[in-house]
């Protein structure tokens, strides 16, 4: 099983201790780890075989994301292997093929530069791409660009004359200034300013004024994978907590024998199970009926956000004082859950999508 193999690798190569070491060293990215993932085919999990990828599908990508959530592995997997690859695989030109091959090989990493405010709102993008001869000049600012401090390519959403347009631009192009910023989850989110950055027609992904045709499926894939990660995170936090309930004794008995904690643990487990169903469904819909996957994706993201939050809160509380110490891993789970709750749309955002698609 893919999950077992992934878990085996991650437990070895990128357990929570790896994230901790990275944080303590002031780093937000481990190129060596990403190289290994690329060698295992993870970077190319959604890259067509023709471009050198493994093309395993969205359900498989979710399984990998879920396992990374369990071990809190930090990598460009979501930004690059899921979001950028999904955007690019919809384009059938040579340029896209090259980009996909570079992704699968691990050489090229992407960051998604869409949001400008404190909440996910792609449609509200104000960054301008002004016509300039045959090309464009981009001016404005993007924030909360996850992996944006180190990625070598950026997917930039910009406002053009009659709509929004998606650009694929090398991150070192003149006029781009990146301010990397470590988030509470010890990963990278950059503030990026664009000061008259040049772009040609070749940099446009899909059609001018029509970013969403290409971007929406990429966002769906990213949201589903992030949901899977949060679901795995919840399972990881719950696993630690369950083990602690069994081993920790107080008043002379294991604390897991206290009925109040038992019922809360059983409730949390139930919540994890229900969320797991939503994750599986999202993967199945993205693979089988992608045009109608929006509901499944938002359902998964909303549920996973909520379950992860419950899991880390109960995790800290049931661990007592030790759960509050930095020495213990639970805090890392809690911090990542908070970032995951916000990125690519919070609970309210996705609840709104669900309501709209369900007709109320």
């Amino acid at each position, binding site marked *: 099983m893919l999950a077992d193999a992934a878990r085996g690798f991650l437990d070895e190569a990128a357990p929570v201790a790896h994230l901790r070491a990275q944080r303590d060293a002031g780093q937000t990215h481990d190129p060596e780890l990403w190289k290994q993932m690329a060698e295992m085919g993870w970077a190319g999990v959604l890259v067509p075989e023709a471009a050198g990828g493994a093309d395993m599908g969205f359900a498989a990508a979710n399984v990998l994301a879920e396992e990374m959530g369990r071990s809190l592995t930090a990598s460009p997997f979501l930004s690059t292997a899921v979001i950028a690859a999904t955007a690019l695989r919809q384009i059938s030109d040579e340029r896209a093929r090259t980009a996909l091959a570079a992704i699968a090989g691990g050489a090229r990493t992407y960051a998604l530069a869409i949001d400008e405010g404190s909440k996910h709102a792609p449609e509200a993008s104000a960054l301008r791409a002004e016509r300039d001869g045959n090309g464009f000049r981009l001016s404005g600012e993007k924030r909360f660009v996850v992996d944006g401090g180190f990625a070598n390519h950026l997917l930039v959403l910009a406002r053009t004359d009659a709509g929004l347009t998606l650009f694929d631009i090398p991150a070192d192009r003149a006029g781009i200034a990146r301010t990397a910023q470590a988030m509470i989850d010890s990963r990278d989110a950059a503030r990026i300013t664009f000061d008259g950055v040049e772009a040609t027609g070749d940099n446009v992904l899909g059609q001018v004024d029509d970013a969403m045709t290409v971007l929406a499926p990429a966002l769906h894939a990213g949201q589903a994978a992030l949901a899977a990660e949060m679901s795995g995170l919840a399972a990881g936090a719950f696993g630690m907590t369950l083990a602690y309930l069994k081993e920790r004794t107080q008043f002379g008995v294991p604390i897991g*024998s206290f009925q109040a904690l038992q019922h809360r643990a059983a409730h949390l*487990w*139930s919540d994890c*199970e*229900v969320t797991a*169903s939503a994750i599986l469904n999202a993967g199945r819909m993205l693979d089988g009926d992608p045009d109608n996957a929006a509901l499944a994706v938002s359902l998964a993201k909303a549920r996973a956000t909520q379950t992860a939050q419950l899991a880390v809160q109960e995790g800290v509380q049931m661990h007592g004082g030790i759960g509050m110490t930095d020495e213990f891993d639970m805090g890392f789970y809690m911090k990542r859950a908070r970032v995951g709750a916000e990125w690519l749309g919070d609970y309210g955002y996705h609840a709104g999508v*669900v309501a709209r698609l*369900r007709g109320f």
Partner: protein
Amino acid sequence: MGQDSGDLALFRADIRAWLDENCPQDMRDGAVGEDSICWGGKNWNFTSEAQEIWLHRCATAGYSVPTWPVEYGGAGLNRDQEKIFHEEMARINARLPLQSFGIWMLGPALLQFGTHAQKLHFLPPIARGEIRWCQGYSEPGAGSDLASVQTKAEDKGDHWLVNGQKIWTSYANKADWIFALLRTDRDAPKHKGISFVLIDMRSEGASTRPIGLISGASPFCETFFDNVKVPKSYGEDIPSQVGEINRGWDVAKYLLTHEREMISGSAMLAGSGRSLGVILSESGHLDDPILRADVMRAEIDELAFGLTLERYKDQASAGQGTGDASAMLKYVGTELNKRRQELIMAGAGADALAWDDGRAPDWLRSKANSIEGGTSEVMLSILSRRVLGLPG
């Protein structure tokens, strides 16, 4: 849904054709409420000719109990076929032809523990809707402690002499027979002296009394056994008990797990009904952020739970029995249904406060969901001990 493979595609076509031909128009109204159910039994009065025809045709084809073996009155469908059958039923909004505790509970118990002769004797009348069964588990004061059975069956050679009282026996006043847990050995440990016995409700000394509920309905009864004589055998190789004497707890345990698994089709669980958001948006109060937020959350949880029901059914039919984990379905599903009914009441506001509006009885009825068939607390304890392995 995806595509059926070859055999299944053929099967779907067959079912569709059969339904087209056999399901009366009046049975295609999608009604699922208490009033539209056909329970069957000797005292049953069909609510319409169509209901009677529909039951008869289904029973003849084995479709009242589609997964039971053909020799016992079923159609012998496997899980994939069953799914298709239900999908096709749903496509034309067909009512279920028959529902009963015989189908839900006794049938599975007999299929698992019964002798061949027992099955031949008892199952076909259930499938045809001729005998209506009720379930005699709970006793006054026992509540969640089902094994504390006090109703006693004394061994009188060729028969048992039964004395005692059951409670919460659904529709006992309308049933023909009862399957009951009786204490057949008072000296054995609590779980070792119980037998699972089949009793004709017309027996002298058996009587029932309906219990009025807060919803105004009386679906439950107290059932009394006053020196009831129960034969030990109903024919050759047809003992009156299911499984071995004094091992009735094994049957009960099996049924408890089975009940939780098959409960997934029950109206007491949310997750497969009409969109709560749409129901409430018709009331016009979804501009209130409190109500709107509660409904959005409930809609999300119901959708995810509906997917979970499907996932568990698939696992069960794939032979990966979900066993104790199915207690989760009972717990989550009933709590969700209570939430759903609360929100329906809140959305309807003053309109729902009159009895004749009809929403209040459903709302009040839902409060029993997390009590009957094992309380939420019992489910959580089962999960924590048996699934999570937390110490007793």
